[in-house]
């Protein structure tokens, strides 16, 4: 045992140890988009979509790697295999967006809405807790809750996810209400802009919303194999999740804060892409 081991608490590093710690990735200097996700299709990245379920028979979605739901039996919440599919279409829409950006990522469904379920309280907490325990790389949460009594639990879960290297991408509520978990700094929070390019996203200089991505008049996969044109922050978040999957496929060990930093560096307002044409915005598409 070295002197350093004796004198420093377990969570400390001495200077020499810190100097020799290698970060998993170098900071992108030139052409950050190409560095971040150029050539990536999201392979090897596991994404969990906590929503209304997913219809894997929809041509814009295809096979998914897991389908579970929170169930309520005599007041007890459990996680079980889901046989309902998507009872609204919303989760399928989110999956279709992510699949279009990161076609090779794994997609898992955790249904917290539909049937007897409302996703905005204890059921949401249960589903999110399960997803964090599974250590998915990314969790897409195009939902939030205004219920104050679960806010503290959600904050603890968001912190737990952060320390387990699980990245939560959460859509901001569309209305001026206090809702969670998108307001927590440990998650990536997403609002909408009305552009169309799926790779056009911006850092918001006025948090708590950190990123804005397309969320207006988007053609989306929906229920029973249909497509609709819809608007909502719900659909902006999966764009950031999809880009996150592309980045993590190339840079596996990025922490949540590093992923945020890379996404900031590659955002349209942090690069010269601001003046580029819409086609050029997607130059690093896979």
């Amino acid at each position: 045992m070295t002197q350093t081991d004796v004198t420093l608490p377990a969570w400390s590093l001495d200077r020499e140890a810190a100097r020799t710690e290698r970060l998993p990735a170098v900071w992108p200097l030139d052409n950050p988009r190409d560095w971040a996700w150029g050539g990536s299709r999201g392979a090897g990245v596991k994404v969990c979509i906590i929503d209304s379920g997913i219809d894997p028979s929809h041509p814009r979605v295809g096979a998914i790697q897991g389908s579970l739901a929170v169930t309520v039996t005599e007041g007890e919440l459990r996680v079980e295999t889901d046989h309902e599919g998507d009872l609204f279409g919303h989760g399928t829409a989110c999956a279709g967006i992510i699949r279009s950006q990161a076609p090779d990522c794994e997609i898992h469904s955790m249904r917290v809405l539909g049937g007897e379920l409302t996703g905005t309280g204890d059921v949401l907490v249960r589903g999110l807790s399960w997803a964090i325990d599974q250590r998915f790389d990314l969790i897409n949460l195009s939902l939030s809750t205004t219920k104050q009594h679960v806010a503290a639990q959600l904050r603890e879960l968001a912190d737990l996810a952060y320390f387990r290297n699980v990245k939560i991408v959460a859509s901001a509520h569309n209305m001026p209400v206090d809702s969670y978990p998108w307001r927590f700094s440990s998650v990536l929070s997403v609002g909408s802009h009305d552009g169309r390019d799926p790779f056009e996203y911006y850092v918001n200089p006025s948090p708590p919303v950190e990123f804005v991505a397309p969320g207006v008049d988007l053609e989306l996969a929906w229920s029973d194999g249909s497509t609709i044109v819809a608007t909502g922050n719900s659909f902006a978040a999966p764009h950031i999740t999809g880009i996150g999957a592309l980045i993590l496929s190339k840079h596996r060990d990025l922490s949540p804060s590093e992923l945020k930093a890379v996404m900031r560096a590659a955002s349209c307002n942090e690069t010269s892409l601001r003046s580029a044409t819409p086609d050029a915005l997607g130059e690093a598409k896979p």
Partner: protein
Amino acid sequence: MSALANAAGQQRLLQSVVELARATFAARACSIMSHDPSTRELVFEAVAGEGAATLPGRRLPATTGLAGWSIASEEPISVADASRDPRFARDVAESTGFVPSAVTVFPLLSHGHALGVLSLLDQSASASVGIAEMRVLATLADHAASVLQLVLDARVQPSDESSDALHALRRALDAAGEADRRALLTIVTSLTDLSR
């Protein structure tokens, strides 16, 4: 007695909200539905435009369709071509006979849950419901939620025991100093949240 203290006055106020929303967006119809959690149904409370004469009082399942989504998720959504959603088209056609193209639904949120839904059908004031329109509708939905809360509260007839407890609380609040009053209100709010 003020006009708002009776049911007819509150109903006029609720109706004025849907009339205002419909006029603002030149919509074919606008409605406010309350959510009855005991039956998991939505109840038409006020309707402007299409269905105004026939829909008030009618009930729909709160578990499907865009309105069902809004109640369950407590989120708004705007769909430009809802008739392409086979489930929505089927639900709406069976219940109203009118299948709109564009549908925007906003939850009416109050104290951490959805009291009901504001629905706007086939707006023609704008090509689509974009970010600016969503902001206006969010404000209207907040207003509608306050009015619907007023209407629903007035329907609840507390038992004598509940009434006595509420009056005792009111007296205690009136008698308390500012700090104690705030503390009492915090306790009441927390107990109310916990009971939901």
